[in-house]
């Protein structure tokens, strides 16, 4: 296995299958899906590698935070995604551990006319066994639970809806999402 391996062998089919897992977790906050068969250089998880392969390309500037900003991963991203690596403020996607992604006020939250112009955070190395928070809102029947690195940042992010960033959590081959519409308790 060389440094650039781990992409999609059959991009159209594999990205279609991986996208449905991404769609499902976004539409149903709290759900955890597995994304297997993808890999990139450390420390990126296979789930985060799949999210990059499905969603990121040369039109979506990417911020790499902390340990995720390393030459091997930059090279892998350049080869598979072609995304320009940029500062947090210019990022459409941002990849890193939760600690490395803070402070979060650097990321785009969209504008009142274009709330879609907001960053998507890909929180890697997520601990799915951490203390779960209670979630409510669109996509959730009643309430759901999901381990979060903290609650305060998500409560503040929800308070400015429809503005705000959206989040994926990746750890190993596991994937979950917390769109800005979700209420965290």
């Amino acid at each position, binding site marked *: 296995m060389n440094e650039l391996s781990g992409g999609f062998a059959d991009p159209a089919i594999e990205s279609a299958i991986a*996208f449905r897992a991404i769609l499902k977790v976004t539409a149903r906050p709290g759900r955890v899906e597995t994304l297997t068969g993808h890999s990139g250089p450390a420390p990126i998880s296979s789930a985060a590698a799949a999210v990059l392969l499905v*969603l990121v390309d040369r039109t979506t500037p990417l911020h790499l935070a902390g340990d995720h900003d390393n030459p091997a991963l930059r090279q892998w991203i350049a080869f598979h995604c072609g995304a320009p690596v940029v500062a947090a403020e210019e990022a459409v996607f941002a990849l890193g551990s939760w600690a490395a992604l803070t402070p979060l006020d650097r990321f785009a939250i969209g504008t009142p006319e274009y709330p879609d112009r907001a960053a998507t955070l890909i929180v890697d190395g997520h601990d799915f066994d951490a203390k779960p928070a209670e979630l409510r809102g669109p996509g959730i029947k009643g309430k759901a639970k999901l381990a979060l690195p903290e609650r305060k940042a998500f409560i503040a992010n929800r308070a400015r809806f429809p503005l705000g960033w959206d989040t994926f959590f990746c750890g190993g081959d596991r994937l979950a999402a917390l769109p800005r*519409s979700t209420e965290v308790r």
Partner: protein
Amino acid sequence: MTDQAYNFAYLDEDTKRMIRRAILKGLAVPGYQVPFASREMPMPYGWGTGGVQVTAATLRPDDVLKVLDQGADDTTNAVSIRKFFQRTASVATTESTGGATVIQTRHRIPETPLTEDQILVYQVPIPEPMRFLEPRETETRRIHALADYGLMQVRLYEDIARHGEIATSYAYPVEVAGRYVMDPSPIPKFDNPKMSDCPAIQLFGAGREQRIYAVPPYTQVVSLDFDDHPFVASKAEHECAICGSGDSYLDEVITDDAGGRMFVCSDTDYCARRAEGGAA
């Protein structure tokens, strides 16, 4: 057999990525219209190119696709879209609502309740609910940004003043998750309540107008109304002449030259199942 001249589901990977990103932002901001760069499709705009692009970016090879057009699966439009995806994505197809994993629709929501395992893709001609009240895009953006929907309330109230009730019977505006006012596409208002608290994912694609929007599962979708004129999901006051259903949406059909007429279910799959198996 997949036609090898095409990528899976026809669209190239760059286009699918762009559409997929728009779908996800649409789910994150329910009811908000996300702009996207609509592609030329091998069919005219009136044939649901927006819905086709959303379906193409959503399909997996193991999906079972149903295409519903005004309640029927056998219209020219439905047949051609179904064939398009059989050819370009090799997906299985069905006319059964319960047997489908992805349903692309124009003008109806199936009568059979949808499930968590399903995605409903709407073909949308005009995504902007304020378009006929305010033609300027900059102005409708401002209205949505400020949630300043008074103009829509005025229009509906003028209906009441003129007709004694809200006369709008198709594309009846809804409020999604307490924030955005959204056009539900030209479904009869009878179908509006099915959008609310629905277990399925609902995606909307407008090709010519280049907009994608979404309603996540279990999201509140409320038809706009007034305390003194509550919303009524009305239908013809008849039972289906074929299956006897008293609570499905009915089409009036002319039966003979002498002006004979009857009412039958608009949803032909629902009606056929009831007629076959007694009460469905």
